[in-house]
Protein backbone atom coordinates (compact mmCIF):
# COMPACT_ATOMS: atom_id res chain seq x y z
CA UNK A 1 0.00 0.00 0.00
CA UNK A 2 2.85 2.32 0.90
CA UNK A 3 4.48 1.66 -2.49
CA UNK A 4 1.25 2.74 -4.26
CA UNK A 5 1.25 5.97 -2.22
CA UNK A 6 4.84 6.78 -3.18
CA UNK A 7 4.11 6.19 -6.88
CA UNK A 8 1.07 8.53 -6.72
CA UNK A 9 3.13 11.21 -4.98
CA UNK A 10 5.96 10.78 -7.53
CA UNK A 11 3.49 11.04 -10.45
CA UNK A 12 2.11 14.31 -9.05
CA UNK A 13 5.55 15.73 -8.21
CA UNK A 14 6.91 15.17 -11.73
CA UNK A 15 3.64 16.45 -13.22
CA UNK A 16 4.05 19.81 -11.47
CA UNK A 17 7.72 20.04 -12.48
CA UNK A 18 6.75 19.36 -16.11
CA UNK A 19 5.14 22.84 -16.12
CA UNK A 20 8.66 24.31 -16.23
CA UNK A 21 9.04 22.93 -19.75
CA UNK A 22 5.58 23.90 -20.98
CA UNK A 23 1.91 23.64 -20.08
CA UNK A 24 0.90 20.05 -20.87
CA UNK A 25 -1.94 17.61 -20.09
CA UNK A 26 0.09 15.98 -17.29
CA UNK A 27 0.34 19.34 -15.48
CA UNK A 28 -3.35 20.09 -16.15
CA UNK A 29 -4.34 16.80 -14.48
CA UNK A 30 -2.17 17.52 -11.43
CA UNK A 31 -3.51 21.08 -11.26
CA UNK A 32 -7.12 19.91 -11.42
CA UNK A 33 -6.54 17.24 -8.77
CA UNK A 34 -4.84 19.80 -6.51
CA UNK A 35 -7.67 22.35 -6.90
CA UNK A 36 -10.37 19.74 -6.24
CA UNK A 37 -8.70 17.99 -3.30
CA UNK A 38 -7.57 21.23 -1.60
CA UNK A 39 -11.00 22.90 -1.93
CA UNK A 40 -12.55 19.78 -0.37
CA UNK A 41 -9.87 19.71 2.35
CA UNK A 42 -10.52 23.34 3.33
CA UNK A 43 -14.27 22.89 3.39
CA UNK A 44 -13.99 19.85 5.68
CA UNK A 45 -11.45 21.63 7.93
CA UNK A 46 -13.57 24.82 8.13
CA UNK A 47 -16.67 22.70 8.79
CA UNK A 48 -15.15 20.84 11.74
CA UNK A 49 -13.17 23.79 13.12
CA UNK A 50 -15.60 26.69 12.69
CA UNK A 51 -19.13 25.34 12.30
CA UNK A 52 -18.83 22.42 14.76
CA UNK A 53 -15.97 23.51 16.96
CA UNK A 54 -16.51 27.27 17.22
CA UNK A 55 -20.20 27.78 16.55
CA UNK A 56 -22.06 24.64 17.60
CA UNK A 57 -20.00 23.94 20.71
CA UNK A 58 -20.20 27.64 21.61
CA UNK A 59 -24.02 27.55 21.40
CA UNK A 60 -24.50 24.28 23.21
CA UNK A 61 -21.86 24.99 25.85
CA UNK A 62 -22.99 25.21 29.53
CA UNK A 63 -22.82 29.04 29.42
CA UNK A 64 -23.81 29.51 25.78
CA UNK A 65 -22.23 32.50 24.03
CA UNK A 66 -25.24 34.07 22.33
CA UNK A 67 -23.04 36.55 20.51
CA UNK A 68 -22.27 33.65 18.16
CA UNK A 69 -25.88 33.88 16.98
CA UNK A 70 -25.18 37.44 15.84
CA UNK A 71 -22.29 36.05 13.79
CA UNK A 72 -24.58 33.38 12.33
CA UNK A 73 -27.25 35.91 11.30
CA UNK A 74 -24.56 37.99 9.56
CA UNK A 75 -23.45 34.78 7.83
CA UNK A 76 -27.00 34.00 6.67
CA UNK A 77 -27.36 37.58 5.40
CA UNK A 78 -24.25 36.92 3.33
CA UNK A 79 -25.93 33.88 1.79
CA UNK A 80 -28.96 35.96 0.80
CA UNK A 81 -26.87 37.21 -2.12
CA UNK A 82 -28.22 34.21 -3.98
CA UNK A 83 -31.71 35.76 -3.83
CA UNK A 84 -31.51 38.65 -6.37
CA UNK A 85 -34.43 40.62 -4.93
CA UNK A 86 -32.96 41.08 -1.45
CA UNK A 87 -29.36 40.45 -2.45
CA UNK A 88 -28.39 43.95 -1.31
CA UNK A 89 -28.75 42.82 2.36
CA UNK A 90 -25.39 41.02 1.95
CA UNK A 91 -23.77 44.46 2.07
CA UNK A 92 -24.45 44.64 5.81
CA UNK A 93 -22.14 41.78 6.92
CA UNK A 94 -19.60 43.03 4.40
CA UNK A 95 -19.71 46.53 5.91
CA UNK A 96 -19.31 44.95 9.35
CA UNK A 97 -16.20 43.02 8.25
CA UNK A 98 -14.57 45.99 6.51
CA UNK A 99 -15.34 48.38 9.39
CA UNK A 100 -13.98 45.97 12.00
CA UNK A 101 -10.85 45.22 9.95
CA UNK A 102 -10.16 48.93 9.39
CA UNK A 103 -10.56 49.73 13.11
CA UNK A 104 -8.62 46.68 14.31
CA UNK A 105 -5.67 47.21 11.92
CA UNK A 106 -5.43 50.98 12.47
CA UNK A 107 -4.31 50.71 16.09
CA UNK A 108 -2.29 47.51 15.71
CA UNK A 109 -0.22 48.79 12.81
CA UNK A 110 0.19 52.16 14.51
CA UNK A 111 1.52 50.83 17.81
CA UNK A 112 3.75 48.08 16.39
CA UNK A 113 5.01 49.76 13.20
CA UNK A 114 5.18 53.46 14.07
CA UNK A 115 5.64 53.76 17.84
CA UNK A 116 8.01 50.81 18.25
CA UNK A 117 10.07 51.47 15.12
CA UNK A 118 10.47 55.20 15.81
CA UNK A 119 11.39 54.51 19.42
CA UNK A 120 14.09 51.99 18.50
CA UNK A 121 15.60 54.50 16.02
CA UNK A 122 16.23 57.03 18.80
CA UNK A 123 19.72 55.69 19.48
CA UNK A 124 22.88 57.69 20.15
CA UNK A 125 24.90 58.07 16.97
CA UNK A 126 28.23 57.38 18.66
CA UNK A 127 27.58 53.68 18.99
CA UNK A 128 27.79 51.85 22.29
CA UNK A 129 26.43 48.48 21.42
CA UNK A 130 26.80 46.71 24.75
CA UNK A 131 27.18 49.58 27.12
CA UNK A 132 30.89 50.14 26.46
CA UNK A 133 31.90 53.73 27.22
CA UNK A 134 31.40 56.01 24.22
CA UNK A 135 34.89 56.69 23.03
CA UNK A 136 35.98 53.09 22.95
CA UNK A 137 32.93 52.30 20.76
CA UNK A 138 34.37 50.78 17.64
CA UNK A 139 34.02 52.57 14.31
CA UNK A 140 31.88 49.57 13.28
CA UNK A 141 29.06 50.48 15.66
CA UNK A 142 29.23 54.22 15.10
CA UNK A 143 28.93 53.92 11.32
CA UNK A 144 26.19 51.35 11.84
CA UNK A 145 24.10 53.67 13.99
CA UNK A 146 24.58 56.65 11.68
CA UNK A 147 23.46 54.51 8.73
CA UNK A 148 20.40 53.24 10.63
CA UNK A 149 19.20 56.69 11.73
CA UNK A 150 20.10 58.33 8.40
CA UNK A 151 18.64 55.50 6.30
CA UNK A 152 15.32 55.53 8.14
CA UNK A 153 15.09 59.31 7.83
CA UNK A 154 15.87 59.42 4.11
CA UNK A 155 13.61 56.39 3.51
CA UNK A 156 10.71 58.41 4.91
CA UNK A 157 11.72 61.35 2.70
CA UNK A 158 11.42 59.08 -0.37
CA UNK A 159 7.83 58.19 0.54
CA UNK A 160 6.86 61.87 0.93
CA UNK A 161 3.93 62.69 -1.38
CA UNK A 162 3.42 66.40 -1.12
CA UNK A 163 6.81 67.70 -2.24
CA UNK A 164 8.53 67.22 -5.58
CA UNK A 165 11.83 65.27 -5.40
CA UNK A 166 14.03 68.22 -6.36
CA UNK A 167 17.16 69.89 -4.88
CA UNK A 168 18.30 68.86 -1.41
CA UNK A 169 14.97 67.17 -0.79
CA UNK A 170 15.46 65.16 -4.00
CA UNK A 171 18.98 64.20 -2.88
CA UNK A 172 17.71 62.88 0.44
CA UNK A 173 14.96 60.96 -1.38
CA UNK A 174 17.56 59.39 -3.66
CA UNK A 175 19.61 58.22 -0.66
CA UNK A 176 16.36 56.92 0.77
CA UNK A 177 15.50 54.78 -2.25
CA UNK A 178 19.11 53.51 -2.32
CA UNK A 179 18.73 52.35 1.30
CA UNK A 180 15.46 50.67 0.44
CA UNK A 181 17.10 49.00 -2.56
CA UNK A 182 19.88 47.66 -0.30
CA UNK A 183 17.15 46.26 1.95
CA UNK A 184 15.46 44.56 -1.01
CA UNK A 185 18.77 43.23 -2.34
CA UNK A 186 19.72 41.92 1.12
CA UNK A 187 16.45 40.05 1.72
CA UNK A 188 16.45 38.69 -1.87
CA UNK A 189 20.03 37.38 -1.52
CA UNK A 190 19.13 36.03 1.92
CA UNK A 191 16.15 33.93 0.79
CA UNK A 192 17.59 32.74 -2.56
CA UNK A 193 19.56 30.00 -0.85
CA UNK A 194 16.80 28.80 1.44
CA UNK A 195 14.58 28.14 -1.62
CA UNK A 196 17.18 25.70 -2.92
CA UNK A 197 16.81 23.36 0.05
CA UNK A 198 13.09 22.97 -0.76
CA UNK A 199 13.99 21.52 -4.14
CA UNK A 200 16.78 19.37 -2.68
CA UNK A 201 14.18 17.80 -0.37
CA UNK A 202 11.80 16.99 -3.29
CA UNK A 203 14.59 15.59 -5.46
CA UNK A 204 15.72 13.40 -2.58
CA UNK A 205 12.14 12.04 -2.45
CA UNK A 206 12.15 11.27 -6.19
CA UNK A 207 15.64 9.77 -6.49
CA UNK A 208 15.85 8.34 -2.97
CA UNK A 209 12.47 7.24 -1.58
CA UNK A 210 10.92 6.46 -4.98
CA UNK A 211 13.68 5.24 -7.31
CA UNK A 212 15.99 4.20 -4.47
CA UNK A 213 19.09 5.33 -6.35
CA UNK A 214 20.60 7.20 -3.39
CA UNK A 215 22.40 5.22 -0.63
Amino acid at each position, binding site marked *: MQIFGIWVAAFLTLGIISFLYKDNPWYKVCESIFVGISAGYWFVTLFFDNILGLFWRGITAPDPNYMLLV*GATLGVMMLLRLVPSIGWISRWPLAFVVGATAGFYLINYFSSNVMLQVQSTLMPLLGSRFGQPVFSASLYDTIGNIV*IAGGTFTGLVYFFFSKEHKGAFGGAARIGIWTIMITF*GASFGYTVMSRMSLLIGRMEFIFGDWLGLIR
Partner: protein
Amino acid sequence: MKRQVPLLITLVVGTVLILSVFFPPAERLGEDFSIFFDIIAVFAFFLGGGNLVRIHGNRLYKKNKDWAFSLVTLLGFFIMLIAGLFKLGNPGGISADVAASGSLFQMLYDWIFNPLGATMYALLAFYVASASYRAFRAKNREATILLIAAFIILLGRTPLGVYATSWIPESFSLLQIPNLAIWIMTSPNLAGQRAIMIGIALGVISMSLRLILGVERTYLGVDNE
Protein backbone atom coordinates in the same frame (compact mmCIF):
# COMPACT_ATOMS: atom_id res chain seq x y z
CA MET B 1 -31.46 52.26 2.89
CA LYS B 2 -29.10 50.26 0.70
CA ARG B 3 -26.33 52.80 1.08
CA GLN B 4 -26.80 54.56 4.42
CA VAL B 5 -27.04 51.51 6.70
CA PRO B 6 -23.83 49.73 5.54
CA LEU B 7 -21.85 52.99 5.84
CA LEU B 8 -23.30 53.50 9.31
CA ILE B 9 -22.28 49.94 10.30
CA THR B 10 -18.73 50.54 9.08
CA LEU B 11 -18.52 53.84 10.98
CA VAL B 12 -19.83 52.44 14.27
CA VAL B 13 -17.94 49.14 14.21
CA GLY B 14 -14.69 50.82 13.13
CA THR B 15 -14.83 53.49 15.83
CA VAL B 16 -15.74 50.98 18.55
CA LEU B 17 -12.79 48.77 17.66
CA ILE B 18 -10.36 51.70 17.57
CA LEU B 19 -11.41 52.86 21.03
CA SER B 20 -11.64 49.33 22.48
CA VAL B 21 -7.84 49.23 22.85
CA PHE B 22 -7.92 52.09 25.37
CA PHE B 23 -10.64 50.71 27.67
CA PRO B 24 -9.78 47.42 29.44
CA PRO B 25 -13.44 46.30 29.71
CA ALA B 26 -13.62 46.38 25.90
CA GLU B 27 -10.10 45.02 25.35
CA ARG B 28 -11.28 41.62 24.14
CA LEU B 29 -13.58 43.02 21.37
CA GLY B 30 -10.83 42.49 18.81
CA GLU B 31 -10.86 38.75 19.56
CA ASP B 32 -14.67 38.57 19.42
CA PHE B 33 -14.48 40.16 15.97
CA SER B 34 -12.16 37.45 14.66
CA ILE B 35 -14.65 34.79 15.88
CA PHE B 36 -17.49 36.60 14.08
CA PHE B 37 -15.32 36.79 10.96
CA ASP B 38 -14.59 33.04 11.01
CA ILE B 39 -18.33 32.30 11.15
CA ILE B 40 -19.17 34.70 8.32
CA ALA B 41 -16.30 33.23 6.25
CA VAL B 42 -17.63 29.70 6.71
CA PHE B 43 -21.10 30.70 5.51
CA ALA B 44 -19.53 32.52 2.57
CA PHE B 45 -17.67 29.28 1.72
CA PHE B 46 -20.99 27.83 0.54
CA LEU B 47 -21.00 30.58 -2.13
CA GLY B 48 -17.40 29.80 -3.08
CA GLY B 49 -17.84 26.02 -3.12
CA GLY B 50 -21.10 26.47 -5.01
CA ASN B 51 -19.34 28.60 -7.62
CA LEU B 52 -16.58 26.01 -8.05
CA VAL B 53 -19.13 23.25 -8.67
CA ARG B 54 -21.22 25.43 -11.00
CA ILE B 55 -18.29 26.56 -13.16
CA HIS B 56 -16.77 23.09 -13.58
CA GLY B 57 -20.23 21.53 -13.87
CA ASN B 58 -21.06 23.92 -16.75
CA ARG B 59 -17.82 23.07 -18.55
CA LEU B 60 -18.56 19.38 -18.12
CA TYR B 61 -22.18 19.77 -19.27
CA LYS B 62 -21.33 21.85 -22.34
CA LYS B 63 -18.31 19.58 -23.10
CA ASN B 64 -16.20 22.58 -24.13
CA LYS B 65 -12.45 22.54 -24.41
CA ASP B 66 -11.11 21.18 -21.11
CA TRP B 67 -14.17 19.35 -19.80
CA ALA B 68 -12.13 16.28 -18.80
CA PHE B 69 -10.06 18.30 -16.34
CA SER B 70 -13.20 19.84 -14.86
CA LEU B 71 -14.41 16.30 -14.23
CA VAL B 72 -11.14 15.54 -12.39
CA THR B 73 -11.54 18.67 -10.24
CA LEU B 74 -15.15 17.83 -9.33
CA LEU B 75 -14.23 14.23 -8.51
CA GLY B 76 -11.34 15.40 -6.32
CA PHE B 77 -13.60 17.90 -4.55
CA PHE B 78 -16.44 15.43 -3.80
CA ILE B 79 -14.18 12.51 -2.86
CA MET B 80 -12.33 14.67 -0.33
CA LEU B 81 -15.63 16.12 0.93
CA ILE B 82 -17.24 12.71 1.49
CA ALA B 83 -14.05 11.18 2.90
CA GLY B 84 -13.81 14.04 5.39
CA LEU B 85 -17.43 14.64 6.41
CA PHE B 86 -18.28 10.94 6.81
CA LYS B 87 -14.80 10.00 8.09
CA LEU B 88 -14.47 7.04 5.74
CA GLY B 89 -11.90 4.47 6.81
CA ASN B 90 -11.38 6.35 10.06
CA PRO B 91 -10.38 3.85 12.78
CA GLY B 92 -12.19 5.95 15.42
CA GLY B 93 -15.48 5.98 13.55
CA ILE B 94 -17.76 9.02 13.15
CA SER B 95 -16.74 10.72 16.41
CA ALA B 96 -12.98 10.44 15.87
CA ASP B 97 -10.71 13.28 14.86
CA VAL B 98 -11.13 13.83 11.11
CA ALA B 99 -7.40 13.68 10.43
CA ALA B 100 -6.77 10.51 12.45
CA SER B 101 -4.04 8.43 10.79
CA GLY B 102 -5.39 5.57 8.72
CA SER B 103 -8.46 7.51 7.60
CA LEU B 104 -8.99 8.01 3.87
CA PHE B 105 -8.96 11.77 4.50
CA GLN B 106 -5.47 11.62 5.99
CA MET B 107 -4.25 9.25 3.28
CA LEU B 108 -5.44 11.63 0.53
CA TYR B 109 -3.70 14.45 2.45
CA ASP B 110 -0.39 12.59 2.75
CA TRP B 111 -0.29 11.14 -0.77
CA ILE B 112 -1.85 13.94 -2.85
CA PHE B 113 -2.25 17.24 -0.97
CA ASN B 114 1.17 17.30 0.66
CA PRO B 115 3.43 16.34 -2.25
CA LEU B 116 1.59 18.75 -4.60
CA GLY B 117 2.00 21.63 -2.13
CA ALA B 118 5.65 20.83 -1.41
CA THR B 119 6.47 20.59 -5.14
CA MET B 120 4.74 23.87 -6.01
CA TYR B 121 6.76 25.46 -3.19
CA ALA B 122 9.96 23.82 -4.55
CA LEU B 123 9.34 25.44 -7.98
CA LEU B 124 10.58 28.59 -6.27
CA ALA B 125 14.14 27.25 -6.50
CA PHE B 126 13.87 27.27 -10.33
CA TYR B 127 12.12 30.62 -10.46
CA VAL B 128 14.57 32.28 -8.08
CA ALA B 129 17.40 31.24 -10.40
CA SER B 130 15.64 32.46 -13.57
CA ALA B 131 14.67 35.73 -11.82
CA SER B 132 18.31 36.21 -10.78
CA TYR B 133 19.41 35.61 -14.39
CA ARG B 134 16.78 37.73 -16.12
CA ALA B 135 15.86 40.53 -13.78
CA PHE B 136 19.21 41.13 -12.15
CA ARG B 137 20.30 43.52 -14.83
CA ALA B 138 22.07 46.67 -13.66
CA LYS B 139 19.59 48.72 -15.74
CA ASN B 140 19.77 51.82 -13.56
CA ARG B 141 21.51 52.96 -10.39
CA GLU B 142 18.83 51.51 -8.09
CA ALA B 143 18.97 48.10 -9.79
CA THR B 144 22.78 48.12 -9.47
CA ILE B 145 22.60 48.77 -5.73
CA LEU B 146 20.03 46.01 -5.32
CA LEU B 147 22.25 43.65 -7.33
CA ILE B 148 25.40 44.43 -5.31
CA ALA B 149 23.63 44.04 -1.94
CA ALA B 150 22.04 40.75 -3.04
CA PHE B 151 25.36 39.48 -4.37
CA ILE B 152 27.23 40.23 -1.12
CA ILE B 153 24.56 38.59 1.05
CA LEU B 154 24.30 35.66 -1.37
CA LEU B 155 28.08 35.07 -1.24
CA GLY B 156 28.20 35.73 2.50
CA ARG B 157 26.04 32.70 3.17
CA THR B 158 28.07 30.23 1.08
CA PRO B 159 31.50 28.66 1.73
CA LEU B 160 32.53 30.24 -1.60
CA GLY B 161 32.17 33.72 -0.12
CA VAL B 162 34.32 32.84 2.87
CA TYR B 163 37.22 31.75 0.64
CA ALA B 164 36.97 34.65 -1.75
CA THR B 165 37.89 37.22 0.92
CA SER B 166 39.69 35.22 3.62
CA TRP B 167 42.98 36.82 2.53
CA ILE B 168 41.86 40.26 3.83
CA PRO B 169 43.90 41.02 7.00
CA GLU B 170 42.19 40.83 10.38
CA SER B 171 42.31 44.62 10.97
CA PHE B 172 40.01 45.19 7.98
CA SER B 173 37.87 42.20 8.93
CA LEU B 174 34.74 44.18 8.09
CA LEU B 175 35.64 43.90 4.40
CA GLN B 176 35.53 40.10 4.53
CA ILE B 177 32.33 39.06 2.77
CA PRO B 178 30.70 37.20 5.70
CA ASN B 179 31.24 40.14 8.07
CA LEU B 180 30.19 42.64 5.41
CA ALA B 181 27.03 40.59 4.85
CA ILE B 182 26.22 40.68 8.56
CA TRP B 183 26.86 44.43 8.70
CA ILE B 184 24.53 45.01 5.72
CA MET B 185 21.85 42.91 7.40
CA THR B 186 22.12 44.71 10.74
CA SER B 187 22.46 48.33 9.53
CA PRO B 188 21.19 49.49 6.09
CA ASN B 189 18.74 46.59 5.86
CA LEU B 190 17.29 47.55 9.25
CA ALA B 191 16.94 51.22 8.20
CA GLY B 192 15.13 50.33 4.97
CA GLN B 193 12.78 47.90 6.76
CA ARG B 194 11.92 50.61 9.31
CA ALA B 195 11.17 53.25 6.67
CA ILE B 196 8.90 50.82 4.82
CA MET B 197 7.12 49.68 8.01
CA ILE B 198 6.46 53.26 9.18
CA GLY B 199 5.16 54.06 5.69
CA ILE B 200 2.87 51.02 5.70
CA ALA B 201 1.43 51.93 9.11
CA LEU B 202 0.65 55.49 7.97
CA GLY B 203 -0.89 54.11 4.76
CA VAL B 204 -3.08 51.76 6.80
CA ILE B 205 -4.20 54.62 9.07
CA SER B 206 -5.20 56.82 6.16
CA MET B 207 -6.98 53.96 4.35
CA SER B 208 -8.78 52.80 7.48
CA LEU B 209 -10.01 56.33 8.19
CA ARG B 210 -11.20 56.71 4.59
CA LEU B 211 -13.15 53.45 4.93
CA ILE B 212 -14.62 54.28 8.35
CA LEU B 213 -15.62 57.83 7.34
CA GLY B 214 -17.22 56.47 4.18
CA VAL B 215 -14.95 58.49 1.89
CA GLU B 216 -13.95 55.21 0.23
CA ARG B 217 -16.92 52.99 -0.70
CA THR B 218 -15.88 51.06 -3.78
CA TYR B 219 -15.85 47.82 -1.83
CA LEU B 220 -19.59 48.19 -1.23
CA GLY B 221 -20.26 48.36 -4.95
CA VAL B 222 -21.64 51.80 -4.27
CA ASP B 223 -20.28 54.70 -6.30
CA ASN B 224 -18.53 57.48 -4.37
CA GLU B 225 -21.00 60.37 -4.74
